[in-house]
């Protein structure tokens, strides 16, 4: 790695993680293949991608768990080689069951509080607040080993939030958590980012990715596409469309095409693709449909399309 400064100090306050050309080999497998990624502060950034695309490896590299073979990275303004200096500002939730099954919920949290030097009244208040947030207040004297999968996951999250981290790294945090509680989590994440914290999350759940400000799509150790969920859909070649039922589909189709719209005929229905919803009015004026339906592409479709092709369209 060269000693070149990656980001100028004036801008590094706005960036939580900046990585350039990261390379990591596991034996003969190149898990990170020139990954470059910028994660702005105060955002929720979601990493999507097929299994083995390097998402977890990237997160582990951020906390210094693996040694990179190439590239450079800054985390909260520090080069990654000095990440231990700021490790107390990071909260890292692994996919492992990293809690102690033979300790109670309270004891597990007290242990993590101890690691971060949180004690006394602040510790009590923090534990109460977090157990309440993850809805485990009534179970604090139970052994962690007796919890269900989802409860365990909630406790894991509570433990890594104990020290109020500036950068949260969440590797598939909502696996096994019911939708109601997931909503609570996301509201909490939102409040954290509003307070200036950065949340980097990997997930397979598209509805969660939709909630993120930025979605990065990883494949084979690289960032293939990045942007807001809307931008990702566009990158995948997906546009919203209007499905119209008209009397003379042939003539209407010709008219719309002549005005520059992409149209697909499907029996007596037409699918008209829109670059933006602003054009919807024009389409309706031209076609005068009997009935209509707005079809919005999902991130899932975009993701599937990107996975199929390997390259965004």
């Amino acid at each position: 790695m060269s000693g070149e400064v990656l980001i100028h100090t004036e801008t590094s306050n706005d960036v939580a993680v900046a990585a350039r050309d990261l390379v990591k080999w596991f034996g003969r497998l190149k898990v990170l293949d020139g990954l470059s990624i910028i994660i702005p502060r105060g955002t929720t950034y979601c990493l999507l991608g097929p299994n083995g695309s390097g998402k977890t490896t990237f997160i582990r590299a951020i906390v210094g768990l693996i040694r990179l073979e190439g590239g450079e990275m800054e985390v909260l303004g520090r080069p990654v080689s000095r990440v231990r200096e700021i490790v107390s500002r990071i909260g890292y939730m692994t996919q492992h069951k990293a809690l102690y099954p033979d300790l109670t919920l309270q004891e597990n949290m007290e242990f993590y509080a101890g690691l971060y030097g949180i004690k006394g009244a602040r510790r009590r208040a923090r534990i109460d607040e977090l157990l309440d947030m993850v809805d485990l207040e009534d179970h604090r004297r139970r052994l962690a080993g007796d919890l269900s999968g989802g409860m365990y996951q909630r406790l894991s999250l509570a433990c890594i939030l104990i020290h109020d981290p500036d950068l949260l790294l969440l590797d598939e945090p909502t696996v096994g958590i019911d939708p109601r509680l997931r909503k609570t989590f996301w509201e909490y994440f939102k409040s954290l980012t509003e307070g200036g914290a950065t949340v980097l999350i990997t997930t397979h759940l598209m509805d969660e990715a939709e909630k993120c400000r930025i979605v990065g799509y990883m494949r084979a150790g690289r960032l293939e596409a990045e942007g807001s969920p809307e931008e990702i859909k566009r990158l995948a070649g997906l546009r919203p469309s209007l499905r119209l039922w008209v009397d003379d589909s042939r003539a209407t189709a010709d008219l719309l095409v002549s005005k520059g719209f992409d149209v697909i005929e499907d029996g007596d229905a037409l699918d008209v693709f829109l670059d933006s919803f602003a054009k919807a009015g024009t389409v309706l004026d031209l076609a005068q449909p009997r009935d209509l339906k707005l079809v919005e592409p999902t991130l899932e479709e975009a993701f599937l399309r990107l996975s199929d092709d390997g390259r965004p369209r």
Partner: protein
Amino acid sequence: MRPTFEGIEGGLGRILAVALRVIRQLKRDRRTVGLITFAPIFLMVLFGYALSGEMSGIGLGLVDEGGQEGLRGHLEGVDDFEILHLGSASDAELLIEEGRLNGAIVLRPGQVVVMLDGSSPQIAASLMDQVRIGLERPMPLDLRYIHGYDLEMMDSVGPAVLGLVVFFFTFIVSAVSFLRERTQGSLEKFVASPLSRPEMVLGYLLGFSVFTVIQSVTTMAVVVFVFGVPMEGSPATALAVVLLLGAAALVMGAFFSNFAKTEFQVVQFIPLVILPQVVLTGVWWPIQSIPESIRPVSSILPLTYSSEALRAVMLKGASIGEIMPDIFALSLFLLIGFVAATLALRREVG
């Protein structure tokens, strides 16, 4: 980073957090607590009864420096004698002092030295008789009386077994604990927390020491009060030796846990790490009776030093100053084990 007061205080807080966690976990694991506290007592009782008989036969050390083949042949032919071939007169003297031999004979060209344990005159007399019979021609004998003990076998073995028992249980429990940290992923989380690896190992040492103290005190009490093994020296000194050995066992367990993937594989360390110490460290029979060629192995096993130190303190009333070489050796094991365990934790991730 330069160490600051805050930094040191933070480190101490993290060490205490780990120690408290280890104590809480062990306390809840009733079976392991039982194993740590009662199994040693059970073992000591077992050994105690098995070994409480008077030593059979007359233990005779033989140092052959040439000549006197006739006498040697005669002594080896006496049924009552259990002969131990030794390398030097000073070894022989030491073993008589410790009560492990009733006497010793040094054979030199033109000279025979007879060392006798003055505490058992009957045995001394029968030894002298046999020497006189065995001599081909009369010659002056260099006769020395050495103050020894009239010991039961348990007296001699007890102090060393105390060390063995503590080492065994601490090593196994430590290896399994560290293995779990790794397999359940908490180690990975520590790397991403302010807890450093040395702090983690120190926290374990602190937490475990509570149980090692309980274990040592109960086992020692059984050895001394039930089996009447003497405690000539200070119990605190003996306890210090056992604690030091326990600490060395803990860091060795932490280090060796890196070579196991499952708890089943930890059990496989017993023949590898524990058995050589049972055989080669002078717990059951004097180290001087082990062939010279494998004795260097004994010198790299911690139990060699704890056995020596505990015997010296309990049987001969040695002060802490007199066992300093052993304390030093055990501290060295602790230090090397600590560094190795810490480095191995580092190597593990990534």
